[in-house]
């Protein structure tokens, strides 16, 4: 089968073009060039007729190219005709002729400065809404907690234990691994730089204070936010998508009490435990590196550690853990319940949940630092 052709003949001011061959998608590229050339040929003709009787095969592509040619001439005031249209192609041509091809103009670009300002404004309002939602959720959780205190038998203990296993027990290996490495890295860096001053032994002070006061809990919280916060958001989000949350509500249950309270309580129990395990693993890692790399004997390390840190250092770290757990849990649940019908929104909300909870964990850590500094600890 050969590509389509378009041959012309002029009789006075009437130009007859005869189309033949295959006017199909395969040849659309050649045909496009062919009809473009035909349209751009200078002609004084007042009538142009295209004869399509000789076309063997035609599809939407061919029909549109012929239609486009006719339209181009029509706009130049030439009288156009389509002749020899076989019955079997009539429907196709009618469909193509019905097309308007009118695409409304692109909306005018806004002023870039105004657009930026507008987006900043929108983001700020959204941020404000986020804060409000967070406090609302906090209030709802406290209310649910108080209700449960009055009627303890309504508490979903099994659910909480299940979540506890997932967020605490199953997280132990990865938390151990990460905190051990962090402790080891801090210790190595400390020894490397302190050695220049001959102050190797102070690395024990640094590792002890840093790990117990700050890093232990913050690293654990970041891990928990990424691991469990995202899981909470995804679970609640998919329950919201499948209308499970609505089903609960219509049966007279409070989703906060049934779904959210056990999750948040599980986190509040899990994060201090994990922080403790993490802090111990980090000290172990730090001690190991101090011994192997810095030549500080474990006995020396432990006795130095005893001098460097007090129980208070440890308490300052641990007291933060439940608050951070609460923040992670609240953010995860707020985001989860904001999921709309689509799978995309589940994805975005899960990402938002992790980003926001890690951000807030660090903000809360900063607030605690300011607080402890002002009361002189």
């Amino acid at each position, binding site marked *: 089968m050969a590509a389509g052709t378009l041959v012309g003949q002029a009789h006075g001011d009437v130009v007859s073009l005869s189309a033949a061959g295959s006017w*199909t*998608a*395969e040849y*659309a*590229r050649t045909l*496009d060039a062919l009809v473009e050339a035909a349209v751009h040929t200078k002609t004084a003709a007042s009538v142009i007729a295209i004869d399509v009787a000789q076309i063997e*095969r035609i*599809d*939407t*592509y061919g029909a*549109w*190219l012929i239609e*486009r040619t006719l339209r181009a001439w029509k706009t130049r005031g030439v009288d156009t005709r389509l002749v020899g249209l076989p019955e079997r192609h009539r*429907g*196709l041509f*009618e*469909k*193509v002729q*019905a*097309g*308007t*091809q*009118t*695409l*409304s103009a*692109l909306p005018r670009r806004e002023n870039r400065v105004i657009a930026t300002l507008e987006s900043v404004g929108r983001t700020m309002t959204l941020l404000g809404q986020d804060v409000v939602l967070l406090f609302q959720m906090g209030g709802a959780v406290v209310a649910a907690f108080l209700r449960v205190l009055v009627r303890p038998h309504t508490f979903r203990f099994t659910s909480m234990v299940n979540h506890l296993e997932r967020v605490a027990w199953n997280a132990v290996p990865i938390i151990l691994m990460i905190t051990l490495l962090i402790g080891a890295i801090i210790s190595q860096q400390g020894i490397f730089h302190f050695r220049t001053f001959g102050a190797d032994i102070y690395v024990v002070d640094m590792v002890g204070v840093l790990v117990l006061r700050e890093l232990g809990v913050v690293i654990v919280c970041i891990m928990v936010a990424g691991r469990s916060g995202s899981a909470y958001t995804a679970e609640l989000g998919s329950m919201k998508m499948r209308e499970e949350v609505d089903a609960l509500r219509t049966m007279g249950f409070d989703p906060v009490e049934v779904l959210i309270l056990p999750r948040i309580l599980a986190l509040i129990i899990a994060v201090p435990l994990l922080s403790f395990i993490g802090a111990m693993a980090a000290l172990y890692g730090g001690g190991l590196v101090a011994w192997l790399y810095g030549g500080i004997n474990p006995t020396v390390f432990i006795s130095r550690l005893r001098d460097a840190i007090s129980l208070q250092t440890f308490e300052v770290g641990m007291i933060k853990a439940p608050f951070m757990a609460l923040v992670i849990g609240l953010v995860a649940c707020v985001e989860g319940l904001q999921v709309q019908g*689509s799978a*995309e929104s589940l994805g975005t909300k899960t990402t938002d949940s992790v980003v926001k909870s890690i951000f807030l964990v660090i903000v809360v850590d900063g607030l605690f630092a300011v607080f402890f500094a002002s009361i002189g600890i």
Partner: protein
Amino acid sequence: MATNGQTDHVIKVRDLVVDFQSHRVLNGVNVELNRGEVLGFVGASGAGKSTLARTIIGLLPKKSGIIEVLGVDIDKATEEQKRAIDRHWGILFQQGALFSSLTVGKNVEFPIREYLRLSPKLTTEIAIAKLEMVGLSPDVYREYPSELSGGMVKRVGLARALALDPEILFLDEPTSGLDPISAGDFDQLILTLQETLGISVFMVTHDLDSLHRVCDRIAVLGDGKILEAGTMEKMLASQHPWLVSYFHGARAHADWHVRVKG
């Protein structure tokens, strides 16, 4: 358009067996799609209708059997022939399967760009022409799939399936999830396009109305086999218990019998 000599069957399936792990879904299916006809596939949920369609289009592996598309045995086809087949069929997935990161226009243009390398102007024009053919306004060209209603998504999906003027069109439950009016319009659209473009249509459906309105022939899938194939009259006359409950059941319309007999 054809990649081979004339053949009456655009699709021919012989003794097709498909397993899902240890579970046999299709057990010796024999069916063919004639050129220019609309073949409707029915069967109970889980009977393997979609499995059959997905096996023919190559998304699922088969255990044994022969699938011939446009006269080419899929197993023996060269890469070039496979590409030619891909270009000659269009598939409308149940949920539309539009690329969510692309606008409606780019979705329809996607296969055109990949296969034909036309000028940008012609590519856009064809995409708009296709959108208008499926009854959409050219203005949806710049919208994203997430901004469309369910019926519009199906229409855009159809426009994309038709982008290359295919010979075979697969429709997986085209009217599911549409209200009766939209479903009726969609049936009409399929019918018109099938007539104007001369496509052969392989349609999996649950919708008795579309079966009645659109399909030339109906094949019934059950127990991993084709229980019955033929015209609506044949279906209505069949004594097979499943067919009797399907075509004469509570959801069947009394007026079909009248229409068929009259």
